[in-house]
């Protein structure tokens, strides 16, 4: 019985991984289409039927590109840090709160936080080990940015956990059956949204790969396989962040198709933000994290503790 259970979970795991990868592929297609229409041009519309097969041709092209071996790089670190980031991003996806057939975490929030904080190391190591000035600068910026937004992310998360008093992600749907948390804690929801933008190095805060100043940031030296893995890891973390936003603020997981609809709308929001907003300034980014989001989230945490005490 037990071994059959394991087999079933492994099959579910494989299906989940394939689903995540295909979802990431089509997220890139969505991004290119949306950016295209924002800039009044058509996106990819030739490959396959109206550009449906574009992500797969991109993937095949990337895999057949040449893998470089930079001089004086720390090759083992350089080779394995994209692999590690990809592993971490797929491990985070184990958190997806299904009622059956996958791992059900009692302490899911802690698992999420530990996986996202490990993600800093991969960016730092891949920036440092590729022995390029641009990569080093991008890696340093990414580390400082991700670290400072992680604090406010954890504290914003804390106030919604205080409302449900549990670390289980399934509990969010239980406590939001009457009212979504976005209506209870609207400012915190917005703070969470922009913190997750900064945490995944997305566009208003993409200092890790500012194209105009550092050529491509921490992944300048990466080509073919390493670049694919870094890319997949970033986009799957975007998808996971939008899943978490839907889970925490927009009603939670309740076995309906609307959950996935909300998820894709939030990931569309990520793309929309990329098409609309220009890049921020780095010191302003740091001020935003330490002088706005951190005090606001701490004060709200105090408030929601009082709110919870008042409710009981």
């Amino acid at each position, binding site marked *: 019985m037990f071994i059959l259970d*394991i087999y079933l979970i492994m099959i579910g*795991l494989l299906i989940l991984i394939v689903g995540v990868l295909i979802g990431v592929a089509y997220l890139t297609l969505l991004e290119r289409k949306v950016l295209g229409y924002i800039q009044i041009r058509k996106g990819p519309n030739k490959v396959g039927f109206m550009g449906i097969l574009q992500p797969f041709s991109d993937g095949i092209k990337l895999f057949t590109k040449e893998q470089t071996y930079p001089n004086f790089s720390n090759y083992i670190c350089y080779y394995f840090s994209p692999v590690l980031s990809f592993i971490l991003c797929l491990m985070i996806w184990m958190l997806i709160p299904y009622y059956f057939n996958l791992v059900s975490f009692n302490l899911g929030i802690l698992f999420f936080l530990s996986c996202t904080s490990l993600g800093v190391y991969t960016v730092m190591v891949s920036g440092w080990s590729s022995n390029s000035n641009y990569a080093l600068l991008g890696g340093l910026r990414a580390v400082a940015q991700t*670290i*400072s937004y992680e*604090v406010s992310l954890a504290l914003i998360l804390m106030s919604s956990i205080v409302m449900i008093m549990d670390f289980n992600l399934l509990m969010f749907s239980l406590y939001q059956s009457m009212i979504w948390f976005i209506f209870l804690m609207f400012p915190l929801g917005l703070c969470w949204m922009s913190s997750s933008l900064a945490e995944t190095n997305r566009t208003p805060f993409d200092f890790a790969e500012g194209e105009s100043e550092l050529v491509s940031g921490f992944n300048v030296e990466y080509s*073919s396989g*390493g670049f694919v*893995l870094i890319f997949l890891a970033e986009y799957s973390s975007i998808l996971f962040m939008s899943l978490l936003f839907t889970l925490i603020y927009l009603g939670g997981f309740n076995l309906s198709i609307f959950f996935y609809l909300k998820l894709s709308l939030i990931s569309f929001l990520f793309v929309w933000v990329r098409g609309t907003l220009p890049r921020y300034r780095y010191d302003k980014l740091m001020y935003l994290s330490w002088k706005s989001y951190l005090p606001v989230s701490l004060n709200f945490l105090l408030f929601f503790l009082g709110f919870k005490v008042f409710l009981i």
Partner: protein
Amino acid sequence: MILMLNIFTIIMMISNIMMFLSIIISKKTYMDREKCSPFECGFDPKSSARIPFSLHFFLITVIFLIFDVEIALIFPIIKLFKLVNFFLWTKISFFFILILLIGLYHEWNQNMLNWTN
């Protein structure tokens, strides 16, 4: 635990295979000297990349360390909610977060959070 180890092994195998596959099937012409040099807009890099960096990044990391430890101390409060005396729980959690908040304001007051000086 065994389940998580199994899952970790499978995911590790998948990602390593992807990296290895790209090395096997990609085109290889690394006879070129320029191809292996670090990217710097068409010329050889002027300075080494292993240079000392700005101290601000380190200071931010130190502040982060303090706050992260305090977050790690806050998390058990959630689990303690069902276990300890309610009045005691309220008092402890409120004072803890108040001290954290005052610490943040103190750090702000001492200009530790300024990026440029």
